[in-house]
């Protein structure tokens, strides 16, 4: 069975600084990988997804993520964060033949002025 690990429970970043959120997955074959964002009091919103092809994927709100098979990772990055990026971020994995997404435990991002 597939699994997702987000090693960082909480990250604090200064506004304007760069950001990298870590995600590691466990799955025998090529996974389908996702990042979702949850703003306070809201549901989750899809930021970006990786199915195949180019390992660097672009998403909404200026986010990108890179799939690294050798490291079983799919880290989320943003070159310069804005106060509105404060939220909880979830990495998720889907696999062929399984319609269910497996979510990580989330990383809470705090932005300081």
């Amino acid at each position, binding site marked *: 069975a597939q699994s997702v690990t987000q090693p960082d429970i909480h990250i604090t970043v200064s506004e304007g600084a760069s950001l990298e959120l870590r995600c590691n997955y466990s799955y025998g074959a090529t996974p*389908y990988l*996702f990042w*979702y964002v949850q703003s306070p*009091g*809201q*549901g*989750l*919103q*899809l930021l970006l*997804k990786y199915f195949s092809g180019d390992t660097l994927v672009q998403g909404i709100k200026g986010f990108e993520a890179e799939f690294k098979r050798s490291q079983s990772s799919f880290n989320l990055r943003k070159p310069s964060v804005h106060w509105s990026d404060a939220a909880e971020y*979830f990495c*998720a994995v*889907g696999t062929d033949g399984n*319609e*269910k*997404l497996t*979510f*990580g*435990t*989330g990383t809470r991002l705090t932005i300081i002025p």
Partner: protein
Amino acid sequence: DARVTQTPRHKVTEMGQEVTMRCQPILGHNTVFWYRQTMMQGLELLAYFRNRAPLDDSGMPKDRFSAEMPDATLATLKIQPSEPRDSAVYFCASGLSGTLWELFFGEGSRLTVL
């Protein structure tokens, strides 16, 4: 702007009471998921439907939880009787088979059982 609508947004009830949460998926979406979010367990999949038929409810406590889709525009999640450990935020999400995992989430129903 198409979105998933959930009601109620907040519910406080006493132990033993019946609770019903409702979800209106995005028009045209044929797959509906129910998730529960708690601090301890994170996001857990409770059940999901395709074309109104239940495909998997293995994540749901069978003795007290039930999920249905009376029609394509309404999904319900019922808890009877409710217990304090059911306190959580319950999310509904919808999607299209063929674009699976690209889920659209509602804003959630926050349930508190006293």
